[in-house]
């Protein structure tokens, strides 16, 4: 069994602590930028109007249809190989592709792809492809939207994504290929049962990954409209089109809290808390820690919304829904800051294992002999990516929240309402940097 240190499911390398001056610069930047932006940003809403974007030409429709077939096939193949390797391949992360496929290529990789290329996962998701096939065979409704309007909203996504985050960050042996295989099978079965029962649209709210990747896809510039036409819009504009529904706030806050917990597990404070505990007692301590950090992150957001409600005289629950989309860039910024080096280094392991997924000495693509080149990116570059990601996520969050405030209120009230909102964002940003400082 592997010890639960340098957590995030996989990897035995940790990032160097952020240099102290970089922490100071980043924290100062967050505060100054917040109040400068508050004074400088536009006085009327702009993002919602721009969200539809410009069409990218008729050629994108046939290209999209061909691309869809390729994406669906690739998604199914990736799921099949991962499950097959997990149960039939080697026992460790170096001779079995399943752990690095789940924790690095899929979980971190698809987050980056979603922001850069849009919600590609909605098409590539093998669970959606399987659900479509089930419904076609059974003759039941298989329109993509059937079941999307369940009154539980995004709560099933919170449960399934929460289960993954627990497995990755709290469970004591997440890098075991068999455990990964068991998790993937249970996860897929749970989502597919829901889809079979309620319709294919259930996946958008029942599959936590699909729900989160769809949110992240709203940050970027590419999207497809209802006719399948590819369009381009300004960054962040898509966030205004997130449909409010029950559980969405929990989905965002749980993800943000889990990444923060991952950062905390690498501090010497948490090593002391864990002590020499291992196995299920380590799982228990990690579970408490995970819930604790998620609780803090959520309480901070609710407190800020309570403050904003005092200023504008509204209901804090309504405000929590209205400003939630502004946290989505921060969720991605945290993920990028914490997992950039993992993607760069363990991503190389993934490419090597792609040639020999079961650890049987194959060399399908000629990459099997690759070893991790730890000089691909320097520690200096990693530190800059981390600090810039956190600072950039902060600015994106401030802009998005401001745009919503000037849409809802007159300019004076809008600016006043943003003081608590900026406050919680500064706390998230400084907190995120603090975790990197004490890595």
């Amino acid at each position, binding site marked *: *069994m*592997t*010890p639960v*240190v*340098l957590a995030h499911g996989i990897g*035995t*390398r*940790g*990032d*160097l602590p952020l*240099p102290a*001056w*970089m922490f100071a*610069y*980043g924290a100062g*930047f967050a505060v*100054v*930028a917040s109040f*400068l*932006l508050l*004074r*400088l*940003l*536009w*006085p009327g809403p702009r993002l919602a109007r721009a969200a539809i974007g410009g069409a990218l030409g008729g050629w994108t429709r046939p290209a999209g249809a061909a691309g869809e077939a390729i994406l669906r096939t690739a998604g199914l193949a990736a799921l099949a190989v991962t499950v097959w390797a997990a149960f039939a391949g080697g026992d460790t992360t170096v001779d079995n592709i399943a752990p690095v496929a789940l924790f690095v290529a899929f979980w971190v990789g698809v987050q980056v792809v979603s922001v850069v290329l849009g919600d590609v996962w909605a098409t590539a998701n093998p669970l959606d492809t399987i659900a479509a096939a089930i419904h076609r065979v059974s003759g039941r409704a298989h329109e993509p939207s059937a079941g999307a309007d369940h009154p539980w909203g995004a709560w099933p996504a919170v449960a399934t994504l929460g289960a993954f985050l627990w497995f990755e960050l709290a469970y004591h042996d997440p890098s075991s290929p068999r455990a990964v295989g068991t998790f993937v099978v249970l996860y897929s079965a749970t989502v597919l049962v829901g889809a079979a029962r309620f319709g294919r649209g259930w996946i958008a709210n029942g599959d936590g990954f699909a729900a989160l990747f769809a949110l992240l896809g709203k940050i970027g510039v590419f999207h497809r409209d209802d006719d399948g036409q590819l369009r381009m819009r300004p960054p962040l504009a898509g966030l205004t089109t997130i449909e409010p529904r029950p559980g969405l706030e929990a989905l965002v806050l749980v993800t943000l809290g889990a990444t923060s917990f991952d950062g905390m597990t690498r501090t*010497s404070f948490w*090593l*002391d808390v864990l002590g*020499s505990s291992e196995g299920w007692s380590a799982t228990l301590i990690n579970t408490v820690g995970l819930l604790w950090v998620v609780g803090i992150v959520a309480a901070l957001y609710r407190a800020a919304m309570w403050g904003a409600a005092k200023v504008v005289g509204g209901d804090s629950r309504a405000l929590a829904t209205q400003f939630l989309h502004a946290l989505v860039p921060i969720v991605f910024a945290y993920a990028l800051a914490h997992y950039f080096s993992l993607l760069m280094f363990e991503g190389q392991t993934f490419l090597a294992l792609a040639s020999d997924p079961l650890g049987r000495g194959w060399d399908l693509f000629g990459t099997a002999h690759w*070893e*991790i*080149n*730890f*000089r691909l990116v*320097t*520690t*200096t*570059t990693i*530190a*800059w990516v981390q*600090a*810039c990601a956190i*600072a*950039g996520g902060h600015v994106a969050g401030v802009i998005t929240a401001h745009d919503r405030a000037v849409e809802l209120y007159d300019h004076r009230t809008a600016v006043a309402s943003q003081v608590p909102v900026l406050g919680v964002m500064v706390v998230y940003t400084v907190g995120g940097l603090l975790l990197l400082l004490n*890595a």
Partner: protein
Amino acid sequence: MARRRLTLLVAAVVVLAPACRSEDPALEIGEPTSSIGATATSTSTTPTTAADQGEIIRVTVASGEVSGVGDRVSVAVGAEVTIIVEADTTDRVHLHGYDLLADVAPGSPATIEFTADLAGVWEVELEDAGQLLFQLEVR
């Protein structure tokens, strides 16, 4: 009015943008550009510093308890490092990243000598027991 705001916004970005340039002498580390992984015999291309005279890290494991070092040991990039592990069990000591292994047995300590030329935080563990000895911070 809108134009003035835009000008101010651009000015703010220009002023704050240097936060995201990627070179700073205070942080630049003279890392070798070779893509060959470090081995116990590799020589460092980093300029000589005081740390090059050698760092010796001694760890003792008795009844599962690690003593001799804290959770994390910090060394400078390019330092010649010797890790000596005494244990009351038979196992292998594994330094991750550098991927160096040495056998250890009661009365026969493991010794790993290497040049610390890969920056980062690396685990040193008793491989078979899966026990973390310490984290080696190379910076």
